[in-house]
């Protein structure tokens, strides 16, 4: 049995660890609330863009447009979104697992894939893989995200797709379903899919300036931008809620450990007292 001194110092160290994990839990909780609010913010933007797009699609403008060109996929770009920091439970490894699955699939089907990594942990993961081609890495994006932060990721994907260097763009990210459920998944960004939005009567008669093609390009660019932005916001919210849960578990475990250690220490103290008493009574017995 460990000595009382040793137990005491272990309890002290577990206690300070608990304080840290507790603080991290609080921080993650407040960040999660803010991130959760932010995930809803893009909805009106996406909705408006979709309405205009649906209208353009009705006029047949999307039929031969390069951004809607669904060709056989021989090369594709994967945008992988995870976090800069660890200590968030299975957050990073879930994304990595899905990403790896996609890579293996591509390998089987003879598709050549390249990747853009967002987040330090996932960048490290991709660079360690032997065959993965990394075309871009983004780290330390600010907490309060703004649209222009993603511009270069978006432009890389967009330009390569239009130039036919790649045939598809997919995003691997963690969808924020609720604060209890987050699922890592893959979503197609390009080619842009069909739009089945109900037509908004008010813009049926609209004139398009300078012409439909320019407007279409601008709308689609914004729509995929919004989709990517949404993926990043979702990933953020998921990260914080998973970190919160991981830290809550760590705090609970620390509490349990402290209880166990305290019990053990009390036992050790009691044993020492009993022993001392036995020695005293044994000693006085011998004096008689």
């Amino acid at each position, binding site marked *: 049995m460990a000595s009382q001194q040793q137990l005491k110092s272990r309890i002290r160290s577990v206690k300070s660890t608990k304080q840290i994990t507790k603080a991290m839990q609080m921080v993650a909780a407040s960040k999660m609330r803010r991130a959760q609010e932010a995930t809803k913010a893009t909805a*009106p933007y996406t909705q408006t863009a979709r309405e205009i797009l649906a209208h353009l699609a009705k006029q047949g403008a999307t039929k031969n447009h390069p951004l809607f060109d669904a060709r056989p996929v021989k090369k594709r770009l994967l945008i992988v979104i995870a976090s800069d920091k660890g200590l968030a439970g299975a957050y990073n490894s879930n994304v990595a697992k899905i990403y790896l699955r996609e890579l293996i699939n591509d390998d089987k089907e003879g598709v050549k894939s390249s990747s853009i990594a967002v987040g330090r942990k996932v960048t490290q993961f991709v660079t360690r893989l032997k065959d993965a081609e990394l075309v871009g890495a983004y780290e330390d994006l600010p907490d309060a995200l*703004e649209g222009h932060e993603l511009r270069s990721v978006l432009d890389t994907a967009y330009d390569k797709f239009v130039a036919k260097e790649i045939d598809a763009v997919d995003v691997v990210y963690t969808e924020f379903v609720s604060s209890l459920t987050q699922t890592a998944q893959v979503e197609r960004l390009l080619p842009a899919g069909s739009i089945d939005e109900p037509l908004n009567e008010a813009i049926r008669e609209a004139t398009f300036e300078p012409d439909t093609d320019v407007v279409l390009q601008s709308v689609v660019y914004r729509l995929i*931008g919004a989709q990517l*932005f949404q993926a990043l916001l979702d990933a953020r919210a998921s990260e914080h809620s998973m970190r919160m849960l991981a830290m809550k578990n760590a705090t609970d475990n620390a509490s349990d450990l402290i209880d166990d250690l305290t019990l053990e220490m009390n036992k050790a103290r009691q044993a020492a007292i009993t022993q001392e008493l036995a020695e005293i009574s044994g000693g006085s017995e011998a004096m008689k």
Partner: protein
Amino acid sequence: MKLELVTLMGVQLDKEVYEVMLPTAAGPIAVFPGHEPLVSIAIPGVISVRHNKGDADSQLEFFAISGGVIEVTTKNVRVLVDEADHGDDIIEAESQAALERAIKLRDSAKDQIELEKAHQLVDRHMVRLKVADLRRRHHR
């Protein structure tokens, strides 16, 4: 006429207004209630909003916007932009400093990507500065 200013960060403005001046690719346009339906491209610039018919120029509200899409119907104006900053939130000195930094960045850019980025930054801060300037002139 209702004006909606929609950005990636949410709805910035949703209000009944009398007149909106918008920067489009073909030049600035002013939209009044009953305008013919129109979908057009917005370029980085200043949106000016007149809330009521009799309002003087000093009561205009300004927004600095990045590029986007404009949708005008007879009763509605929807502006879809990546970013919009309210005139009141822009501090002139700060924008001036940011613009100078951006210009320096542009002049020292090593490759095409950096140059492109710097150009966007310069545009962005030019617009913000213009909004700050407009505000100062009108709100003395």
